[in-house]
C-alpha cells in the first residue's frame, strides 16, 4: 500500500500545483493499473517457468519410458537372431549364419543409438551421473581391446594398443571411460578403410595432477580444418554428406567431450585430410581424491568467511 501513496506524491512534485482532485485520481488509477500489470506479469512469468519445468519433467519421463519400450523388443530381436546364428552354425549353414549375424550387428548398432540419445537427454537435464571407483587398469584395456578388434576389422583395419604406463589402479568411472574410448575407436574405424587404428596410452601430468593420455589415431579420411571444432558440438558431424554416407546421431563426440570434462579432463583432435586423425583424451587417474581436494578448500574458505562475519 505504501507504493500507492508514494506514486501520486512524487508525481505531485513534478506537476507543482496543477494537480486537481480528478488528476490525482487518474494518476492513482494509472499507478494501480501499472502495479497490477506488473503483478499479473510476474504471475504469468512464474506460471511459464512452472509450466516449462513440468514439461521438462514430462519430457524426461517420456524419454525414459521410450528407452524402456525400445529396449524390450530389441531384447527379443537380438536374442532370437543369436539363436538363429547358433543353429545355423550347428547345421553348417554358412549363409544363414551370416544373415543372422547381420541382424545381431544392426540391432547392437540401434541399441547404441538409443543409448546415445538417452545420454544426451541426461546431459541436457543435468542428470548425467558419474560413478567413480578404483579398479585394475589392465582389465579396462582388456575389455576395450575385446570390443575394438572386431569393430576395426569390419572395414579391414588392423588394431593395436601401445601401453606406455605402469599404472596398475585407476580411480574413475570405468563404464564412462570405456564408453569414450570405444566411441573414439568406433569413429576411427568408421572413417578408415584397410588402414590402421592405434590406441596409445601414456602418463601425463597436468598442473600437479596425474593423468592418463589416450591417443586414438587412424589412417582414415581426416577432417578439414574448419570442421575440427564443430565436430565436438551437438548434432554436428563434419558435414551433411557424412550423415548420409556414414550414419550416426552426431551426438557421440559431444557426449565424449562432456564425459571427459566430468572425468576431470578433456578431448581434442589433430588431423590432416587424406592422412588421418588423432583424438587425444586426457583424464585424471584419481578422480575422487582430486574432487575432494578441489571441494575442501572452498568449504574451508566459507567457514572462514562465516567466522569473520560472526
Amino acid at each position, binding site marked *: 500500500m505504501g507504493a500507492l501513496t508514494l506514486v501520486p506524491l512524487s508525481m505531485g512534485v513534478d506537476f507543482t500545483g496543477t494537480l486537481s482532485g480528478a488528476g490525482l485520481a487518474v494518476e492513482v488509477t494509472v499507478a494501480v493499473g501499472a502495479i497490477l500489470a506488473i503483478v499479473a506479469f510476474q504471475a504469468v512469468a512464474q506460471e511459464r517457468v512452472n509450466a516449462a519445468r513440468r514439461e521438462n519433467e514430462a519430457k524426461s519421463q517420456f524419454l*525414459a519410458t521410450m528407452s524402456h519400450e525400445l*529396449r*524390450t523388443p530389441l*531384447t*527379443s530381436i537380438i*536374442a532370437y537372431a543369436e539363436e538363429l546364428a547358433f543353429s545355423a552354425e550347428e547345421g553348417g549353414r554358412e549363409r544363414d549364419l551370416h544373415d543372422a549375424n547381420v541382424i545381431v550387428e544392426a540391432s547392437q548398432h540401434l*541399441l547404441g543409438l538409443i543409448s546415445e540419445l538417452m545420454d544426451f537427454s541426461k546431459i541436457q537435464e543435468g542428470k548425467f551421473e558419474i560413478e567413480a571407483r578404483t579398479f585394475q587398469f589392465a582389465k579396462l584395456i582388456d575389455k576395450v581391446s575385446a570390443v575394438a578388434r572386431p569393430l576395426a576389422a569390419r572395414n579391414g583395419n588392423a588394431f593395436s594398443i601401445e601401453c606406455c604406463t605402469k599404472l596398475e589402479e585407476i580411480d574413475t568411472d570405468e563404464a564412462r571411460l570405456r564408453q569414450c574410448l570405444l566411441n573414439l575407436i568406433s569413429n576411427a574405424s568408421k572413417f578408415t578403410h584397410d588402414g590402421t587404428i592405434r590406441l596409445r596410452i601414456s602418463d601425463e601430468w597436468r598442473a600437479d595432477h596425474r593423468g592418463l593420455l589416450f591417443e586414438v589415431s587412424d589412417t582414415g579420411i581426416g577432417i578439414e580444418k574448419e570442421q575440427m571444432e564443430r565436430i565436438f558440438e551437438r548434432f554436428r558431424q563434419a558435414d551433411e554428406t557424412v550423415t548420409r554416407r556414414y550414419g550416426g546421431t552426431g551426438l557421440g563426440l559431444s557426449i565424449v567431450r562432456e564425459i571427459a570434462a566430468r572425468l576431470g579432463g578433456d578431448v581434442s583432435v589433430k588431423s590432416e585430410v587424406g592422412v588421418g586423425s588423432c583424438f587425444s583424451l586426457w583424464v585424471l587417474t584419481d578422480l575422487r581424491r582430486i574432487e575432494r581436494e578441489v571441494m575442501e578448500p572452498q568449504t574451508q574458505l566459507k567457514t572462514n568467511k562465516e567466522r569473520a562475519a560472526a
Partner: protein
Amino acid sequence: MTQKILLVEDHEANRAIIKRRLERRGLEVVDVEDGRRAVEAYELHKPRLIIMDLSMPNMGGFDALSRIRELDLDGQLRCIAVTAHSLPSIAERCKQAGFDGFITKPIDFTQLSDEIDRHLAA
C-alpha cells in the same frame, strides 16, 4: 542342492528365449509371467535363484521380491533383477530393494551366465 531357477518375465517372447538358453545350460527352469505368480511359484518350488523382470502387470518385481523375502526363512535365496530401464539410479534401487544382482536388457547371456554361476556357487 537343486539347481532349479524361477524365471519371472511378462514379455512372452523374451521369457521363452531366456528359458531356452538357461535350459541349454542344463538348468531346470520354472517360468511365470508376473510378480503374483512368482510368489506362488516360489512357495511351491523353493528355488535357490530367481531371475526377475521389474516392470510387470499385477505385481512388479520390487513388490514380489519383498513378499518372497518374507517366505525365505533360511535366507538362502538369491535374486537377479533383469530390466530394460537404463537409468543409473535403477541399479542402486535394486540393491536397496534386496536384489543380489542386476542385468540390463538386451541381455548379454554371457554376463547372465556368469551372474548365475556366481550366485549358485555362493
